[in-house]
C-alpha cells in the first residue's frame, strides 16, 4: 500500500516519527561522509525535504531504514556532483594552467575539507577512508543495515561489499597501528 491516499495528518505523523528515530543517525552518517558541519547541515536539510516529498510514494511493507538511507546517499551524491561542477568551473576560470588543481577537483569525495570538530583519532581514520569503503562501512555500522539491504542501495553484489568491508577493516587496523607506533 502506498501512502498516497493517506491524510496529511497521517503523513505529518509519519514524518515526525522518521525524524525522531533517524535524524541523529543520518546526521552522523552525513558528517562522517562529508567531513564538515556546514555542508552536513545543508545536506541534512535536503535529505529531510526529499523524505517529506517522497513520503506519499513510500510503501508500508518497505523497511524504513534502507529507504531513508538510500535517500540520504542520493542527496550526498548530488551534493558532491554539484561541488564537483562548482570546483571544476572555478579551476577552469582561475588556474586552468595548473594541472595539479584540476586533477584534485576531479574527485571531490577524496578532497573533502575536514573540520576541526573531529578530534578523535579513530573518527579521523574513518573520515579519511576512501569514499566507497566509507560508504559501505557507515551503512553497516551507523545505519545498521544488513548486507543485502546495502547491496540493494548501492546496486552491487554482496560479495563485493564483503570485500570492501575487509579492505576497510584492514585499512583501519593499519592506521591504528601507525598511531600506536607514533605514540
Amino acid at each position, binding site marked *: 500500500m502506498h501512502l498516497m491516499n493517506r491524510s496529511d495528518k497521517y503523513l505529518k505523523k509519519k514524518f515526525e516519527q522518521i525524524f525522531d528515530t533517524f535524524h541523529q543517525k543520518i546526521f552522523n552518517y552525513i558528517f562522517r561522509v562529508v567531513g564538515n*558541519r556546514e555542508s552536513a*547541515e545543508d545536506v541534512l536539510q535536503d535529505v529531510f525535504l526529499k523524505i517529506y516529498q517522497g513520503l506519499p510514494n513510500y510503501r508500508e511493507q518497505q523497511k524504513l531504514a534502507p529507504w531513508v538511507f538510500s535517500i540520504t546517499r542520493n542527496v550526498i551524491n548530488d551534493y558532491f556532483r554539484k561541488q564537483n561542477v562548482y570546483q571544476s568551473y572555478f579551476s577552469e576560470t582561475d588556474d586552468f594552467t595548473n594541472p595539479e588543481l584540476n586533477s584534485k577537483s576531479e574527485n571531490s569525495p577524496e578532497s573533502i575539507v575536514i573540520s576541526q570538530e573531529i578530534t578523535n583519532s579513530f573518527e579521523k581514520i574513518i573520515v579519511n577512508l576512501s569514499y566507497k569503503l566509507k560508504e559501505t562501512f557507515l551503512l553497516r555500522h551507523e545505519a545498521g543495515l544488513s548486507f543485502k539491504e546495502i547491496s540493494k542501495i548501492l546496486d552491487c553484489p554482496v560479495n563485493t561489499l*564483503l570485500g570492501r568491508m575487509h579492505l576497510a*577493516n584492514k585499512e583501519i587496523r593499519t592506521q591504528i597501528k601507525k598511531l600506536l607506533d607514533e605514540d
Partner: protein
Amino acid sequence: MDCIWTKNNLFFYIENQLKKAEKKRIEDHLSHCDICNEELLSYKNITARYASLQDFDVPNNFISIIFKNSIKKPARQTSLLQRLITEFIRSWQRKWASIPTFKPAYNIISIFAVLILIAFWGGLHVYKNDHKNQSELIQIFEKETFLEHTYQLPLNSCSIELNFDSGNEIKHVCSKIMDLKIKHESFTHFLNIDLEINSLKNKINQMKEKNIFRRNPS
C-alpha cells in the same frame, strides 16, 4: 581453503545469520586458526570503538528550520495514471536509445511525416469547406430569387433595412416555404403557401414599423 570461506562468512557469523552447521564449521575453524581469530577480534574491536564514538549534536533551532522548510513545500503526489504514462514514455525512450544507427535519420523522417500529414489534412478541410460554402450559397440564392420573382417579396431590401436578427427570421420562413414547394412540386397546396406568404408579408410590415420606431429616438 577454509580460511577464505570463513573470511567470507565472518560478517554473517557475527550477525547470527548462519545455519547451525555453518556456525559449527566456523567455530571449529576459529578454534585452531590464529589469523582468522585475529580478524574476528579486530572486527569486534572496530565495532566496539565505533559504537563508543560520540554523536554530533544537531542544533536545537535547526530542527524547527527543517520542519518549516519541509512543510512549506507541498508533498508530491503522483497518480497511477501519471506513473503509467511516464513509464510508457520511458520504455519508448529506451527502445529509441537501443537503436544504434540512423537515429538522426529517424527523427528527420518522423518530422517530415508529421508535416506532410498536417498539410494533407488541412488541404482536405479547405477543399471541403469551399465546396460546402459554394453549394449553400447557390441554394440560398436560388431560394431568394424564386421567392422574389414569384411572390414579389422584398427580401433583400427587407434584410438590409431591418435588423440582422429579423432578416434571419425572414430567411427562416422563406426556407420553410421552399420546403413546402419542393414537397408538393405541382403547387397542389397553393392556397396554403399563399396564406403563409401573406402572413409573412404582414410580419415583415410589422417589423418594419417597429424598426422605424426604434430607429427614431436618436
